[in-house]
């Protein structure tokens, strides 16, 4: 692999004969007192000139149905940089934003834009797993790194030490792998709700597909029966055929890890089917947000949600207060703490893996940066002590089951009504009803 040395911050001045004359005089009089930096990194080095910024891109769903979450996560990246005094080894940190639109195409286009600027050091994002799939691919191909706080699809990293379908060497995440989330949901449905027949609906997104398939496997493994499994397309509005099919399946619980728009239609239209009145509804973190709860209200009463456990430590509380102080509103995305951890992990890894030259330049070593992220061990994040594995999973697999008992209490009330907690201890799962 050829070694590429990229130099930022070079602007060609207007050269007049006068300046040329002086230039040649200076060249003739000067001696070569410093040798250029020799990059030994397998993926090459980015040399940031003195005073030039370390450029970070926060690639989030800035438009579309999840724009509120994406914008929140983008602000969190800014906050993390601010917590580093907007500096890494004496260089300012410049955060720019790209919209991934919570879609594969969005992730693809945004990533292409990112890699067209070789000065970008790393990417913070994405909001959705479906965007992470092309982004991880494109960013990794460009020898950069991308770290997400909320892309949970198992295929992005892997399961049980095996690389996932969409694994890429430059991808990392602090969000827990959905495999465990689905297991937690299945475990709760089978053992605590004592349900034996389940229907599962996904939307083709790696996130939903991963969760759905993992749930099916786990539920079946526990002895349950998946009586219905299907998909919806993004943008579908008429869910009656789907619900009709589910009603005929006699499912006791519907597990539908979808995003708000499709999820809302399912919940709202379920009321039209008397046969589904006794069927429990369970979704995942895709619907575990104020957006869904505020819109659905009474429709969603009695619904279960599985989602990552939010930390309860003092550091987290301090972060929430600071966010509120800076931006004037409280963070309510499911993965805001994980997203902050992702940002801090990226910034710290850049700081740890970079070299400061005598002239003040900063050398970003691409492979060293990846290695630094991968070797993360015991990093004290908001969500706990983070350690990254070979596949890029750095999150703490800890989930909670929430029960929407009082819609009037809103999203905050939902988060307070925890009916069970699941935690991965090595290879076993412990629950705390």
């Amino acid at each position, binding site marked *: 692999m050829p070694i590429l040395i990229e130099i930022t911050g070079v602007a060609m001045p207007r050269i007049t004969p006068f300046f040329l004359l002086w230039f040649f005089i200076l060249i003739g009089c000067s001696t070569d007192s410093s040798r250029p930096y020799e990059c030994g990194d397998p993926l090459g080095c980015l040399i940031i000139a003195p005073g030039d910024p370390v450029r970070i891109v926060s690639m989030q769903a800035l438009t579309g149905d999840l724009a509120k979450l994406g914008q929140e996560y983008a602000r969190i990246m800014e906050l993390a940089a601010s917590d580093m005094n907007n500096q890494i080894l004496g260089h300012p940190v410049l955060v720019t934003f790209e919209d991934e639109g919570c879609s594969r195409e969005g992730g693809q286009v945004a990533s292409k834009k990112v*890699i067209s600027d070789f000065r970008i050091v790393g990417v913070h994002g994405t909001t959705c797993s479906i965007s992470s799939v092309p982004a991880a691919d494109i960013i990794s191909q460009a020898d950069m790194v991308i770290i997400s706080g909320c892309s949970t699809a198992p295929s992005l990293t892997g399961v049980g030490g095996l690389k996932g379908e969409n694994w890429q060497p430059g991808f990392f995440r602090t969000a827990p792998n959905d495999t465990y989330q689905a297991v937690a949901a299945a475990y709760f449905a089978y053992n605590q709700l004592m349900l034996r027949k389940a229907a599962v609906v996904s939307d083709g997104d790696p996130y939903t597909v991963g969760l759905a398939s993992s749930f099916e496997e786990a539920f079946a493994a526990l002895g349950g029966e998946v009586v219905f499994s299907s998909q919806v397309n993004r943008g579908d509005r008429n869910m009656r055929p789907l619900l*009709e099919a589910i009603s005929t399946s006699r499912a006791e619980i519907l597990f539908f890890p979808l995003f708000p728009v499709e999820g809302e239609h399912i919940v709202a239209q379920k009321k039209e089917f008397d046969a589904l009145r006794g069927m429990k509804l369970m979704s995942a973190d895709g619907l575990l947000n104020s957006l869904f709860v505020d819109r659905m209200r009474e429709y969603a009463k009695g619904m279960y949600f599985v989602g990552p456990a939010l930390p309860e430590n003092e550091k987290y509380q301090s972060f929430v207060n600071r966010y509120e102080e800076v931006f004037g509103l409280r963070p309510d995305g499911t993965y805001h703490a994980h997203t902050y951890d992702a940002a801090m992990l990226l910034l710290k890894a850049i700081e740890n893996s970079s070299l400061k030259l005598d002239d003040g330049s900063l050398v970003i070593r691409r492979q060293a940066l990846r290695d630094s992220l991968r070797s993360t061990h015991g990093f004290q994040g908001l969500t706990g002590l983070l350690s990254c594995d070979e596949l890029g999973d750095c999150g703490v697999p800890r989930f909670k089951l929430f029960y929407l008992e009082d819609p009037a209490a809103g999203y905050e009330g939902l988060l307070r009504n925890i009916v069970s907690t699941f935690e991965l201890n090595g290879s076993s799962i412990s629950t705390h009803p």
Partner: protein
Amino acid sequence: MIILSRIGNFWKKLGFSAKLTISTGCMLLMIILVAATAFISMNIIQSRTENIILASTEIRKKAMEMEAGLQRTRQLERDFFLRWPTMGFEKAFDVYVLQIQNELAGVIQLSHELQVFIAESQVSAELRQNIAHIDFYLSAAERYSLALDEAVRLASMMGHPETGAQFELSRISDLLYSKVQETFLPDLIILALESRAHKKDYLVARQRPFMQSSFNTLSTLESYVKYSGSINTILKDEILSIIEEYRTAADRVLAIDRDISSIFNEFDLQIEALEPISALLVSQSNAEVQKAREDIQRTAAVSMIILGSALLFSIIFSGGVAYIIFRTIALKISDLSSTAALVSSGDLSARARVTSRDELGILAETFNDMTRRISGLLSELEQRAELAKARLFQAVESIDEGFALFDKDNRLVLYNSNFRELFYRLGHRAVQGVLFEDFIRGCAESGLFRKAVQLEEQWVNDKLEFFHSPWKTHEEELTNGAWLEISEYKTKDQETVLIFKDITNRKDYERALRQSEEKYRLLIENQTDLIVKVDTAGRFEFVSKSYCDLFGKSEEELMGQEFMPLVHEDDQEATAMAMQSLFRPPYSCYLEQRAMTRHGWRWLAWSDKAVLDGQNKVVSIVGAGRDITDLKKAEADRLAMERRLLHSQKLESLGVLAGGIAHDFNNLLAAIMGNLEMVLSDFPQDLSRKKQLDQAFKAASRAADLTRQMLAYSGKGKFVIQKVDINQLAAENAQFFMNTISKNISLEFNLDHDIPGIMADPGQIQQVVMNLITNACEAIGHEPGQVIIASGIMDCDKPYLSRSRGEKTPEPGRYVWLEIKDSGAGMDSNTLQKLFDPFFSTKFTGRGLGLSAVLGIVQGHNGAIMVESAKGRGTAVRVLFPVPDDTGISVPKEARQATGTGTETGDEVFSGTILVVDDEEMIRELAREALQELGFEVLTAVNGLEALKIYEDNQDKIRAVLLDLMMPVMDGVRTFENLRKVNPELNVVLCSGYNEQEATQKFQNQGLAGFLHKPFTMADLKRELKKVISE
């Protein structure tokens, strides 16, 4: 600086024509240079701007072509996907896809070209930064191409006439319908048709719910088929298999559709992402062109400015040349002309400037030389005048006072700074040229002078009048409290000189002096002490009012008179010596003298001080005196008191001494008398030696009396207190004396028989009476005389009692008195004073203790003694005893018994053991023998400690203890206490030389069995022991 200096010098040396030539040449050269610079700059800028405009135009053109190509591609792609279902995939592919690929290739080529062009052209940095965006553009276009290929592939998978998923689904759907028809079951046929309808809906709308509805219908159909009994098994299996195939095909269609939809979305996003880039390129190119145009305009403007500047510079340069010519020629001539005009007008300091060495310079130098000489002559004259003026000014200024000179027209012509300071408030009315009248009115109006404040017009008139005919110096007070002394003089030129002298300090001093004089005058007038001032001959120069009052003379009577005649003649010598001492340092003295005042002779104390002149010569003497007569008297009283006190202390010491001696004597006498008594009792009556023993016993008895006198004097001889009738006692003793005294003395009684008894020791009262009668008789001697004994009762106040000759003054109250008055020789004051001193006697014989004892007894009874005597007029001694509160007090039993002086005799024999405790061996032995004679067994101890030991060993047989009071090791009190601890019932008889009251008070309420006074007789001892043992 050096170079400029050299150029300047060079320039000065040049002639007119050379200067003009150089100036003009320089001007032309500068114009040419400016024009050439402007021409070259404009050419360069024009060339560069043209390049930028061309490059920007080219970039804009290419960007717009890219944009158009991309838009065409997008349109073709949409057309393809819209039309292939109707016109057929292959045909649509041929029509659209090839075009799309060509268009995309063109866009990519354009991107490449644009990238290279921007990199090589001289566009701005902003535009150059778009190379990164063009990279993205390029990669996006490439990705677009790939995505398009993928989309076409998917479209092919979906729409291919033979293998397309859509056609496959339709085929299976048709097959299913035909198979269901074979069942001839209408419900099933309807379900199959319904499923086909849902499928068609999906293929039109591409909405997944339609397909789900199709699935649902098929599920129902499937159930019916499975559980229908009217369908044969083969057909049933075929239908169920077809249904499963349908689902698979439908799922494939759904998946392809989702992928195609995703690619479409990607296209949209790509276009959305690329459009801003091409738009940005176009806008930046436009901006670049616009900027180039602005550069041209700016260049034109700059060129105009440069040309204008060149023109301006030319004008300025021409002006400069003109200025140089003006400075070099015209100005010098003008300057020379002006200087000449100034010199002609009298300004000889004027000089023509010499700035060059040309012809005009030489002319100017010559001119200056001429004027300098004239100027020198004139300045010398002016200096002399100035010097004279300065001297006058300094002279005027040197005057400490304010100085002003008014000319004969009464105008102020000269004044000094002191004048200005005095009259600064007048402003322009105290400056040169002001008329005196204006000046003086200014003074009045400004309120400067106090007198002018209320009588302004009169004051002004006075001043004006005085100004015209000044005749003396006068003083004026200013309103600020200051004073001016104004002197006015007329000169011989009838000019007026005014001198204003500040005399405020002098005035203040005078006022202070007056106040001081007044203050001291009041001080002296009100002084109670005497203040005088005399001259060196002692004649009064000043006497205070207090002095006049004391001597009862007026000031006029005393002034000029000598003071010495007023002084007591005994003090005149000392006074004269004191006056002499005032004429030498320290020029002061203190003396006390008596002087004849209106109150008689009075003691005066004087503190004198000499007043010296400048040569330390005494000019007068000031004396401060005070009447110290009362002080003198008080001092004399104090000295007398001190003498009396000293005398009293001496007598008290003697009393203590006498008491102590008497005590020891009692011990000795007890031994002597006891032993004699025992010897006498054993001697036969006819023995010749018995007489000597009787004499010895009498002598011892008299010694005992003497001891009693001494104890009486010391006040410690009061043994027994009981009610005593003093009349009876006096009468009995007087009768006793009548037998012994001379017949020429008549004794007369004048007793008050109503007086109450007094509480006293009858023995001591008897001693008093006897002593006084004895003294009275002795005072009369052998001449005829009379002794009067009187008594009475009286109330005595303190002043009366203070006349008592005793040391202490008794408390006021009611007293019984007894007076012994004789008509003897009387006593002088010296004798009277020492009358009560012990051992003082006027007689040839006698011990001199009689009256001392009387005094001690009287004091011991809290009484008083008064003596009135004068030489030749006899003596009266009155003793007073306080009347007791309860005159019915009974005489104590013990005392009555103790008073018994008779000796009991008898042959009574006692038994038992008596312990005798006394430190005096003689007493112990005497007691032993006496007690043994009485029949007692006797044990002795020398001190208390030994007594205790003996008693403890013999307590069964000891009946009583005879205990001395004063002993070494352990005294009588402690011995008594310890003995009583051993046996509380033990009989103890105390034996002491002190009186009973004093001795027994330490044993009060402790059960003392009896008291035996030393010296005691055998009878006393026997009686006391008998009493104790019998009780």
